[in-house]
């Protein structure tokens, strides 16, 4: 129980810390902004495109894909903010110090990565039914939120493990955000060639929506867990 106390203190401290550079506000507002832009912008554009081209639909077959990307964006933003804080704390040797306080190594990573990820999950799961374009059942919406959250954790760990300062961290976030694009693969690449990219967790969410089969979610979770385990080991040896 004491753990929970020090973890929440450490998390709240992070919020106060990022409040100073407006990062918090940006991270808090952008999921709703992006969601609203998608929900109202895309069907509007689709209408125009259909009128202009005379086709029955243009973007509609990809509405599920857009929902996958929307489910990924909040965790990515939150975990990016967390990764920046971790890198800054690393520069000041704070992480090493916190490891030998009542918070500890595990408490530190929970407060910096797991807590933001869980909050991102809750926000995503709440916003998806409001802003989602494709009508999915609740189980699929929750699955998308879980997949997005795991991916956010992976990106945060990648950034934290592979970069040694904030500048490198920003560059690496852009690069590792390409992981999200795995979801596009099942839409554009035929089997079995598409399986080359099956090491990307989002490949499996793409499969899940494209083939309308929730069983693929198991593969997504499994692949994500392997990533997280490997990155966890790598960050410990850093």
């Amino acid at each position: 129980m004491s753990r929970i106390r020090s973890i929440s203190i450490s998390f709240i401290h992070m919020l106060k810390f990022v409040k100073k550079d407006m990062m918090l506000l940006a991270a808090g507002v952008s999921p709703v902004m992006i969601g609203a832009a998608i929900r109202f912008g895309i069907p509007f554009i689709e209408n125009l495109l259909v009128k202009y081209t005379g086709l029955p639909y243009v973007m509609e077959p990809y509405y599920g894909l857009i929902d996958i990307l929307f489910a990924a964006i909040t965790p990515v933003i939150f975990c990016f903010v967390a990764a920046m804080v971790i890198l800054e704390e690393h520069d000041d040797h704070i992480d090493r110090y916190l490891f030998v306080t009542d918070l500890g190594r595990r408490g530190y990573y929970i407060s910096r990565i797991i807590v933001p990820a869980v909050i991102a999950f809750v926000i995503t799961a709440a916003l998806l039914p409001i802003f989602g374009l494709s009508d999915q059942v609740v189980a699929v919406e929750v699955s998308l939120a879980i997949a997005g959250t795991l991916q956010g954790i992976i990106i945060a760990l990648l950034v934290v493990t592979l970069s040694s300062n904030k500048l490198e961290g920003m560059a690496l976030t852009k690069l590792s955000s390409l992981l999200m694009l795995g979801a596009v693969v099942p839409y554009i690449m035929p089997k079995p060639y598409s399986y080359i990219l099956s090491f990307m967790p989002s490949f499996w969410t793409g499969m899940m929506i494209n083939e309308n089969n929730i069983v693929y979610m198991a593969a997504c979770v499994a692949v994500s867990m392997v990533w997280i385990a490997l990155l966890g080991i790598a960050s410990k040896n850093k």
Partner: protein
Amino acid sequence: MIQVSNLSFSYTKKPFIQDMNFEVHEGEIFGFLGPSGAGKSTLQKILLGMLPGYTGSAIACGTECNRHDQDFYQSIGVDFEYSTMYEKLTARENLEFFSSLYRQRVRSIDELLSLVGLENDGDKKVTAYSKGMKSRLNFIKALVHDPKLLFLDEPTSGLDPTNSRMMKDVILEEKKKGKTILLTTHNMQDATELCDRVAFIVGGKIFALDSPHNLIMSRGAAKITYSWLDNDIEKTGSCQLDRASEDVTLKGLINENRLLSIHSSEPTLNDIFIDITGKTLV
């Protein structure tokens, strides 16, 4: 408080810390004295549970260091050799955050700041602090939760004499309260003044372990040197203090009142260190 037996550790394949054995008793100040690169910080990190890949045994507060639980750190205070502060925040904000992580009663931040002469700098950002101010701030951070075991890595390095004095007084004050303190230093004066016992460490090995007094006494007692005038030419002689009566020249000079000067000198811990390890401290 600390028991180390057959401890070995290395960062690489090459042996480093080899087969170390020592104990630190409750309430004492124990010093690791050795040149840079000797392994002093490494030893502290092992005892802090930060380097779990050792062989042998290292027990602190009754816990094997590589199998500690989180409660381990409640009674331990750490002052690393580098600054571990949020540079963007003020000293007070830093101390408030770190002390809020602990469950137990914490010490007053104002009192701690004034302990090391930072009472007027608490609301300055740490970036604006000088190196010596940062050292002092880092040191009091280790005290916020009133731990019973303190690890201080080179606490006095880079401090001017006044601040060094202030810091040493606080360390001695903590000892009076019954705290156990483990410090590393390559400053033999600090070691002599602060430590109940010191371990000489070079290349990952302990070469000697005893109280500074015993170490100094173990190698040659104090010496007497004296001088006199012989046909207007100054001459000097010397002998051991405890064998002064056997020195015929000295006796004669005393009888004839011809001594120009006489002093006794004890070897310093530095001399002893060079004697035992064959290395200098800096």
